[in-house]
C-alpha cells in the first residue's frame, strides 16, 4: 500500500506545470488548424516569451466549452459558419479576420488511381463518395451546394456512401479506403500528400470558398496578448507558416480557383437534399 502511495507522489512531482509563471493566451481552435497553429504558437512564444495554450477539438464542441466555461482568449473555428454562430451568441469582441481560405476539392488516393478529373466523374456508377454531414459540418454543406449548383446532386446522390460527422473523419476516409472520393477541402491533401491528392473542380464549378476565421473572445482574460497573437497570425511570418502547411492565405490566390465564388456565409440546405 505504501509503495503505491510513494509511486503516486513520484508521478505528482513529474506532473506538467499547471499554473503558468506569467500570463498566457488561451486559444480554442478547430482540429483542422492544428499543425500551423502549433508551429505559430511555438514561434510566438520564442519571440515574445508569452506561452500560448492551444485547445483543439470540433469547432462546435469547443464553442460549447467556451460558452459554458467563460474562458478563452481567441476562437479559431475550422469554418466561417461557426464564427457566425459565435458572433450571434455575442461571444466575439471586435471583428473576425480571415487567416486562410479553403477551396472545395475532390480528395482521392495518392496517384488518383480512378482517374477522377472533374465533378461530372462523380456520376460514375459504383463510385463510392464520402462527404461530411451537411447538417452540421461546413465543408459538407459547401459540398452539397456545389453539387446542386452544378445540377448533378440527384445523379450523384446514389454514390454518397459515407456521410460523417467531422472534417477529420472525412479526411481519414481516403487513407482508410472507406470511399474512393471525398468532397472536402483541398487542404486535406496538403496535410498528407503521400496518401492523398486533390482534384480541384473548374473555376466556374465552385460556388463558394471557405475560410478559417479568427477572433478575440469577449471574455478574454488577456486581451492584449490575444490581440498580439492574432496580429502575429495575420502577419507575414504567421501567414507564411500557414502557407508552408498548404493553406491559401491570399484572397486573390484563392480567387484563382473560383473567381465568381462567394466567400464564407451560409447556404440553406433544402429539406430533403
Amino acid at each position: 500500500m505504501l509503495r503505491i502511495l510513494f509511486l503516486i507522489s513520484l508521478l505528482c512531482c513529474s506532473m506538467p506545470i499547471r499554473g503558468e509563471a506569467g500570463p498566457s493566451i488561451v486559444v480554442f481552435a478547430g482540429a483542422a488548424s492544428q499543425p500551423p497553429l502549433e508551429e505559430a504558437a511555438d514561434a510566438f512564444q520564442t519571440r515574445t516569451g508569452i506561452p500560448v495554450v492551444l485547445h483543439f477539438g470540433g469547432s462546435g464542441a469547443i464553442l460549447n466549452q467556451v460558452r459554458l466555461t467563460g474562458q478563452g482568449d481567441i476562437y479559431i473555428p475550422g469554418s466561417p459558419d461557426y464564427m457566425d454562430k459565435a458572433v450571434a451568441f455575442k461571444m466575439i469582441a471586435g471583428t473576425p479576420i480571415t487567416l486562410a481560405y479553403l477551396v472545395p476539392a475532390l480528395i482521392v488516393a495518392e496517384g488518383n488511381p480512378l482517374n477522377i478529373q472533374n465533378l461530372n466523374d462523380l456520376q460514375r456508377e459504383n463510385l463510392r463518395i464520402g462527404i461530411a454531414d451537411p447538417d452540421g459540418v461546413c465543408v459538407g454543406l459547401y459540398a452539397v451546394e456545389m453539387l446542386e449548383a452544378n445540377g448533378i446532386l440527384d445523379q450523384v446522390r446514389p454514390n454518397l456512401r459515407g456521410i460523417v460527422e467531422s472534417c477529420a473523419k472525412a479526411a481519414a476516409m481516403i487513407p482508410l479506403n472507406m470511399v474512393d472520393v471525398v468532397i472536402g477541402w483541398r487542404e486535406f491533401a496538403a496535410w498528407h500528400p503521400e496518401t492523398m491528392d486533390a482534384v480541384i473542380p473548374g473555376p466556374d464549378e465552385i460556388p463558394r470558398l471557405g475560410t478559417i476565421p479568427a477572433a478575440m473572445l469577449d471574455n478574454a482574460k488577456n486581451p492584449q496578448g490575444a490581440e498580439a497573437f492574432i496580429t502575429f497570425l495575420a502577419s507575414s511570418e504567421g501567414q507564411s507558416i500557414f502557407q508552408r502547411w498548404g493553406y491559401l492565405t491570399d484572397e486573390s490566390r484563392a480567387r484563382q480557383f473560383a473567381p465568381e465564388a462567394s466567400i464564407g456565409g451560409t447556404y440553406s440546405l433544402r429539406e430533403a437534399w
Partner: protein
Amino acid sequence: MLHRDTAFKISMMLPLGLLTAYFLLLVSSQSTFFSIAAFTEQLSGRDLRSAITLSLFAATVSSILAIIIAIPSAYALARLDFPGKRIIDTFIDLPMVLTPIALGTLILMAWNTAIGHLLSNLGLTLPFTVAGVILAQFTVIIAISIRMLKATFEQISPRQEQVARLLGCSAFGSFLHVTLPMARRGILAAIILTWARAIGEFGATVMVAGTARGQTATLPSSIYLAMSMADLPKAVTLVMILISISLLVLWGVRIALESKS
C-alpha cells in the same frame, strides 16, 4: 473409453479463441499505417511524455477516488435498507447510459451553477485543469466500480459478518476485518477494470479539460487529435503506446496483488 467432454470444452473455448484472434487482428492491423519516422518523432517529443504522465496520474487518482467512494456505496446498496434505495440504485447507473461527451457537458454546466461559482470563488478551478481531467474520469468510471463492488458484496454471506460482531467486532470492525478481506478478489477486479476505463476515457475529459498539450492532453485525446488531422501514422504510434502502457500496468497490478494473497 474415458470421455473428456471435448465437444463441450471446445464450444466454450471457441468464442474466446475467435475473440482473441479478432483483437490480435485489430492490434496488428496498425502495422499498415505504422511509420518509423512518426514513431521516433513522437517518442522524442516532450508532449508525449506529458501526455503519458498525465494519463497515468489522472487514471490512478480517479480510480483510487472511485474505489474509495464505491466501496461504502456498494455496501450500502448491497446490504442496507433505506428509503428510495431502488431509485438511487437506478440513478447511479446514469453515467453508464450517457455518452461521456454528454457527461462532460453536464459537468461544465454544473460548474456554472451556484455551487460551481462558490467553489471557484474559494479558489478551485475546474475547466481546463488536471483536476477537471480527474473529475471527468471519475464521473465516467464511478458507476462501473459501484456495480462491480455491489455484485461482490452481494455474494458474501452476511453470516461471517454476524459471527464477527458476536466475537467482539463493532459494525465497522466486522466490515474491516471480515467483509473487506473476503471481498478482496472482487475489489481487485473492480480496481483493474476501473483503471482501464479511466485511462481510455476521452469524451468527458476533452469536454471538461480541453486538449492543451503539456497541460491537459492525455493519451486518448492526443489520439483523437491525431485522427482529426487524418494523421494516421501518429495516431497509430500513440495507440500502440497506449496499449503497451496499459497492458503493462494491468498485468503488473494483477501479478502484484495476486501474489500478496
